[in-house]
């Protein structure tokens, strides 16, 4: 969002008083357009619906727990009812028997609402091209972000969430008392991440060897060292 600090044009004689005043001001006041502020707040308080289908749900739950801590992105408030949620994360296999239920739940989400499809199953059916599985949730729901993986790591889900936030933050919702059924939200753009990231990925020339365990610190070391030691490292 664009924002700027208030610029007062003080009298020269008031200068000294004003310096202190300005400093306070800089800490506490910001000026922006209302719709920018709304977009910014919306992007950083996307509340997911507590909805799980399958194995991927466990990785989504892991994203809430300390090491990944989805609260850093304002999305830790899992709502048990779709009516209070903004985001549906379709975590796992979309079963034919579950499809109508899922549709029903989606219909109850209030606009503006977004859908993240998490995991290969939900993206495309994944490894389950089989009679009881819908070949991707986008066969009946609009999807905003696809997170690949089987299951995606929690970090991947967080990345998906950040992509969604970036898109939501750019979206300007008309601020009227009456909103249409989209809630004024535009469908977000879905640039192909593979293409965007290919140069960066191709630049990697050294991959970790599977014959060693890598250099993750052991918990014993972590627990015995103090926080400042670690920071120095």
């Amino acid at each position, binding site marked *: 969002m664009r924002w700027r600090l208030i610029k007062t044009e003080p009298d020269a004689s008031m200068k000294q008083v004003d310096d202190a005043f300005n400093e306070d001001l800089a800490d506490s006041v910001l000026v922006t357009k209302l719709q920018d502020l709304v977009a910014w707040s919306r992007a950083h308080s996307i509340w997911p619906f507590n909805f799980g289908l399958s194995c991927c749900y466990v990785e989504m739950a892991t994203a809430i727990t300390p090491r990944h801590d989805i609260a850093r992105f304002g999305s830790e408030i899992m709502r048990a009812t779709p009516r209070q949620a903004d985001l549906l994360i379709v975590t796992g296999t979309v079963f034919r028997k*579950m499809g109508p239920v899922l549709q029903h739940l989606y219909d109850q989400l209030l606009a503006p609402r977004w859908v993240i499809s998490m995991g290969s199953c939900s993206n495309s059916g994944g490894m389950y091209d089989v009679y*009881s599985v819908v070949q991707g949730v986008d066969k009946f729901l609009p999807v905003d972000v696809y997170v690949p993986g089987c299951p995606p790591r929690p970090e991947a889900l967080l990345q998906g969430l950040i992509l969604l936030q970036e898109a939501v933050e750019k979206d300007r919702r008309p601020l009227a008392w009456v909103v249409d059924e989209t809630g004024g939200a535009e469908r977000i753009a879905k640039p192909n991440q593979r293409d965007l990231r290919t140069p960066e990925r191709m630049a990697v020339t050294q991959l970790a060897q599977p014959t060693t365990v890598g250099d993750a610190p052991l918990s014993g070391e972590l627990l015995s060292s103090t926080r400042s030691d670690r920071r120095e490292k």
Partner: protein
Amino acid sequence: MSELADQSATDTGVAMQLKAQFGTDCLFQPTVDGIPTFWVSKDRLLPVMSFLKNQIKRPYPLLLDLSAIDERLREHREGQPDADFTAFYHLMSLERNEDVRIKVALSDADNRLPSLTPVWQSANWYEREAFDMFGIVFDDHPNLRRILTPPLWEGHPLRKEHPARATEMDPFKMTPEFQQAQQEDLRFVPEEWGMNREAKHTDFMFLNLGPNHPSVHGVFRVALQLDGEVVIDAVPDIGYHHRAAEKMGERQSWHTFIPYTDRIDYLGGVMNNLPYVMAIEQMAGIEVPPRAQVIRIMLAELFRISSHLIFYGTFVQDVGQMSPVFYMFADRERLFSIIEAITGGRMHPSWFRIGGVCQDLPAGWDAMVRDFIDYMPKRLAEYERMSMQNSILKRRTIGIGQYDTAEALDWGVTGPGLRATGCDWDLRKKRPYGGYDQFEFDVPIAHNGDCYDRCRVRVDEIHESLRIVRQCLDNMPGGDYKALHPQTTPPPKERTMEDIETLIQHFLNVSWGPVIPPSECTMAIEATKGINSYYLISDGGTMSYRTRIRTPSFPHLQMIPLISNGFLIADLIAILASIDFVMADVDR
């Protein structure tokens, strides 16, 4: 055939006893797993089963499995009676430490069988599943209806003519009418389940819990008949997580099915690979080298710890403690860093192979494992104080959802749920498979069979698993991490450059996959949630002819009404949590 039967089955005892009771016509079928297998006629089924359960000396109280086989395309059935379909029943005796398998031949025209529910109540769901999957009709079944597929489904998926792939069928379309019809069909009608809407002094309320509810641990639904807040009766409804793993087994090669096994009990990781690869190894006659065995046991036990940690955390969360689950997930992350360093994966490493494991352990694994097993006991001690000794938790769970050993066996309960009733039935001890006989560990038990005890047993099991892992760490044998047998997958690549035979084997194994000789084999293990077994039938091909997966959670859910009726809804939540199920392990 029958002479052969007499010879090889006499020493098992059960053949003699069956013969003494019923005359000679129990046809014996040899199988590679050595489980005595008898064919009985349809009209003899009930008497034979009730004899095996009730009258025989040292009886078979546990109905481990019940399903069917579509025999119509099978080529190798030497010595077996003609059949279009075969229903099979797998019984287990704790006293004998033996199993028996009973088979009944059915024709397509007359695929009716008497229901086993008068003998075993737990047969109820198994028969519904066999009906759903094969169209076999069980006479006098209390409520024979579909269980895994949606009510409006057409056809019976495990029949060979039913399409396997979604892409062979019409594309899925969600029209409002379709959604309406499906939703309407899921409406719970109490009368269909023999329930009254009112009693003398009260009108009952019917509450639908699930299939998406934060406390049902997945896509599971249970319809409740309530008097105020008291559960009068409950009807669990499953099938929302049916991923057709058994059908999948018929189209993946023996090797490429391994990743699907990981996703059966999706908290159990490589533990799921174990019974599957061990069954194939038995069929192909592969000896697994000691190093591979110990690596397998170590990883399986690490996953047992991981699964039990999730259970522990969610269980105490469901009865009201919010914090522990966060600590336990943090521990699980530490554990996963080991799994990741060794296998490269987290939840679904699919890392076991037919004949061994995927690769050797990476340099530095031992420091990580040691670090974890040194760290964990302190944490567990903390959780013990925080949760297990917590007086609120105790009051919420002691005496709730209780059952005894006899009930447990009657309903097919295995694993910690059985051991919480004072029965020390653990296959790792009783039938040490895959090298467990080399390890020192105890089988934790508890005696009340209530929610608290089910948690107690699992917590103690974490300690035992840590003990086993430490022994793996201290005594890791050297040598190969997979067998040199030609059927091992993937075959040892290094040797392909040395002799043409291995090169050919390598080529065939990689392009088609191994060919397993025609045979049948069941392999059962003590998985995280109870007994998990794979019953594989090879017709001499590169794919399984029939893959039957017996999972522990399926019968456990069936028991819910028995143990929750009369309790409050809040207690039901504690009971559900204490069962420790995952829906993939129920619906497969």
